[in-house]
């Protein structure tokens, strides 16, 4: 289960990072458009690839990992806070950009 938590956490951190980076650094947005036709499509495709790749890599390196209720509980709460922070960061970023 740990590999899915790690993949979810990396993916949830990636979302505000790519969003803000692409808005502040135009060449990144242009790169996404040139490769994927639309920047949002690029962000979506990268998200899927990132989740699968991180799950695969961490799964291979955690082959002997045993399930642990305490660790899973910590991962659940960590994911909860990260998702909340990630969503709020995106909203605040666009609010600040609008008010500039």
């Amino acid at each position, binding site marked *: *289960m740990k590999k*899915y*938590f790690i993949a*979810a956490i990396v*993916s*949830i951190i990636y*979302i*505000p990072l790519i*969003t803000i980076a692409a808005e502040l650094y135009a060449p990144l947005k242009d790169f996404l458009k040139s490769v994927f036709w*639309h920047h*949002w*499509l690029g*962000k*979506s495709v990268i*998200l899927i690839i990132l*989740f699968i790749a991180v799950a695969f890599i961490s799964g291979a390196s955690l082959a002997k990992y045993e*399930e642990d*209720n305490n660790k*899973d*509980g910590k991962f*659940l*709460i960590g*994911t*909860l806070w990260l*998702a*909340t922070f*990630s*969503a709020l960061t*995106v*909203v605040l970023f*666009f*609010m600040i*950009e*609008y008010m500039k």
Partner: protein
Amino acid sequence: MTTFLITSQILVFFHLVFGELTGVSLLWAIKELVYIGQERLKWLKISLWAAFINAVLAWIVGGTYYLFFYPLVKPVIKEGPQPWGHLIIMEAKEHIFLILPVLTFLLAIFAAKRSHALLENPSLRKKFLWLTSLATLLVFSMAILGYLITWGARTALWLKAGL
């Protein structure tokens, strides 16, 4: 033009339907978690896989609308009296939405692999319930954000029509 309008309306309709079904499936999962029992584990798993599948369908259908039809709506909102409908709300919605397939998949796979731990460990179940509740809140927030975007578009069109 007619084909364009009908197709765009159908896509928005199904984006909304799949989005609401995601929310309803998550509410169903919350109910199964609150009244958990051995015989309910099957329904917990089904409800969370239903949430994930509907989130993916809402992503595909909404994405198709966003990529092919929304570019014609965007300037209407931006040039209207409520440009924040696009500049804040749509920009935030299209990116926050991406959290949902990740969260719903995580919830579904956790229930599939660790359902007995959820049954036997109240502390773990409570934490899982919190994460499921956050996913539910995000889904219904998407519906409100969607309403605010159409508010911006509607106001701009009504003013243009002389209302």
